[in-house]
């Protein structure tokens, strides 16, 4: 034992600067990510702010039951899941396609310009994005409807048609994040050995062939990791934009877990219910990631762990 402690001490002494470098990050995770996990106990308690976490009464699974047995349980799970799924199906490939297109652009200025412009929306707040969407889609003054009207079609009242809600949400989401999403793929693309392209060209492969057989396989590890992480986020549909874009008529497609938690839990100060719902979705998201990871491990050799 003394010898092993010795080596540990020696290793710490040897790497002290590296350890010092990583320390803030570790502290951040402990203080802001791990310590608050204990707060989950309030999901099983009738939490009273004044009494505090420990003195509040235990109520077991009462809040989970309240959520699951409520009349809104299935609709909001379905809405959240579908919104997350569509975001994955349409939103996930979008940056990959843009990155591949940018990669084919030979003119450096144009490429940089497109990259910068496509990043910008990522930094616009959701409140503004929702405002822009509402204005563009307005049935009287909105640009989209003016075009539709000019083409001789009937104007569409986008914001009050439940069937349009998901399309609006997903398309604004893609617009917001497509540029940002390309960064990681563009980085992966630069790591591909140019020799491969040279060899392919000598063998007479077309640009398309090069894309299929060199570029894509080159970024598959990045794609897989991001896909797995995104699968874990299916149920994590952000509150803000949904809340801002929804109207009562679109509840049938737009009411999701986070808006429900806000209405029933947070706005009434029922933190126990809010925590219970969050814990519930956390567990489901966790299951999603594990399943996806296992499948990916079996089918390809890429996985998160």
């Amino acid at each position, binding site marked *: 034992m003394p010898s092993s402690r010795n080596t540990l001490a020696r290793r710490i002494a040897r790497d002290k600067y590296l350890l010092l470098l990583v320390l803030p990050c570790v502290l951040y995770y402990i203080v802001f990510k791990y310590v608050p996990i204990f707060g989950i106990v309030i999901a099983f308690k009738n939490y*009273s*702010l*004044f*009494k*505090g976490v420990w003195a509040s009464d235990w109520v077991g699974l009462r809040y989970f039951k*309240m959520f699951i047995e*409520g*009349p*809104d349980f299935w609709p909001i799970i379905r809405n959240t899941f579908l919104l997350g799924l569509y975001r994955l199906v349409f939103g996930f490939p979008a940056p990959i396609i843009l990155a591949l297109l940018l990669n084919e652009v030979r003119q450096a200025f144009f490429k940089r310009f497109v990259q910068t412009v496509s990043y910008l929306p990522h930094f616009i707040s959701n409140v503004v994005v929702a405002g822009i969407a*509402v204005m563009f889609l*307005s*049935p*009287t003054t909105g640009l989209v409807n003016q075009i539709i009207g000019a083409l001789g079609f009937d*104007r569409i*009242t986008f*914001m*009050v048609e439940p069937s349009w809600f998901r399309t609006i949400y997903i398309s604004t989401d893609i617009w917001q994040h497509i540029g940002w999403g390309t960064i990681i793929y563009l980085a992966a693309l630069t790591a591909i050995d140019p020799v491969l392209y040279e060899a392919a060209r000598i063998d007479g492969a077309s640009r398309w062939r090069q894309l299929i057989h060199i570029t894509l396989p080159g970024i598959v590890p990045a794609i897989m990791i991001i896909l797995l992480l995104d699968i874990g986020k299916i149920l994590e549909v952000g509150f803000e934009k949904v809340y801002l874009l929804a*109207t*009562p*008529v679109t*509840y*049938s497609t737009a*009411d999701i877990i986070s808006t*429900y938690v806000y*209405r*029933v839990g947070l*706005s*009434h*100060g*029922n933190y126990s219910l809010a925590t219970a719902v969050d814990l519930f979705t956390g567990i489901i998201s966790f299951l999603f990631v594990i399943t996806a990871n296992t499948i990916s491990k079996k089918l390809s050799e890429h996985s998160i762990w």
Partner: protein
Amino acid sequence: MKNRWKSSARAGTTLVLAGSLLAACGGQDNPPAASGTGGGTNEPVTLSMMIATHNSWPYKEDWGIFKWYKEKTNVEFKIEAPPNDYTTAVNLAISSGSLPDLMNVTGLTTANKYGNAGAFVNILDHLDKLPNYKKFLDQHPEVKETVLSADGKSYLFPVYGLDKQSRRSWIYREDIFAKHGLKPPTTYDELYTVAKKLKELYPDSFPIGIFDNLGPLNNMTYGFGTANTTYYDFDKKEWRYGPIEDTYKELVTYMNKFYKEGLVPPDFMALKRKQWQDLFTQNKAFIGNDYIGSIDEIVSDNKDFNLNFMIPPKGGPSGVAKNLNNGFITTGFAISSNSKKQDAAFRFMDFLYSPEGIEIASWGKEGETYTVENGKKKFKPEIGDFTKMRQKYGFATYGTYAVLDMEGFFSTFSPKMQAALKDFDKYEAKMQPRVAYTDAENEQLSTLNDSISKYKEEQVAKFILGQRPLSEWDAYVAEFKKLGVQKVLDINKTAYERTLKYVQQK
């Protein structure tokens, strides 16, 4: 409903408006009554207080109002005014256990919830220190109902007087009506005819300007003798749910017709107040429904532009010309149970309900903000309008008053606004009771009400937009039984009876 109400009340206070005469608060003709400040000791003391702050007149350290209070009571304040999200700030203060001596709370439910948990002092145990507050309650029995908790205690010092300024009302473009020789509608049939005519005259317009989801229905339902939520029917002496009544269906039928024929903006659900106001200045809407203060607030470069108060149209055969009555402002004061300076806090609170305190809250200080001419108080002309007064001196905002005599502020408004406010009371429905629920009831109501109001909002909107035919109304009504409307009514009945019993006892 409750949240909407709260947020609209907050929005309402941004308007520059008048209140109305509140005779009960003592006009300037009354000789100043002797006012004890409870206890009698006047030792200098510093209290900590947390108050909400209003975006349009944020808290300033040099506000005169607290200086004037200090001159009379020797109570000085160390004020904490969190700049935004007051509810979170209150929750944080409560969960951290370091409560200020005195604090502004957002409403009865909050006060009762934390009061029951032990954070606030039960005011009824200290009434002997509060002679002026006691007198105030005796003079205003309707207030008493609104400050009790479910077990007959009271944790909230109410505010009184400013509420009239956030009333909902119908408004119309008087100049346009006069120009075309039209008369303001008195019934919904007339409303339909006149809107049709205006649409012919201004084809680009949507004569009946409504906005903000189904918010306008909160007021419109009262013209049909129903309500947009659970309400107490004072004639039948029972709790009812408005949105399933036949009268409510009549309103929805009208709204559907208005929508179909382009008499309301097609995107009214997504419209916000600013866009809605623009409709009026751009001659795109002529009749509207919002805070009465809109008649002064919406201004246009067009010198003929004239918005005025409109008598609420009667809806259907059983209709009445009434507006919604939002009742008193929900915020108030609470005293921390941990405070070591409770007696001073009680002394100060009692002062706010005394004639002297009311005078400072409503008029300020003689020579500084007002002068007395022929025994009549008058604001000095240089202190500006109501908004400026609030910004500069801290008049009439969170934590700076308990009771206001609105007469002074009233004199700072436009003549048509003053006239409207005089008429207004006649067309106001009786105030709905404000009921205190137990914690268990609150929890049940929060989930029940959520499903119910969500279903209502969604379906009513669909009926109006024509996405669901009105022939399915009966199926819609039946659905509410499944969602537990009866239970909500029962809880309200029990809670209300409980409150009435306490009121009679005390």
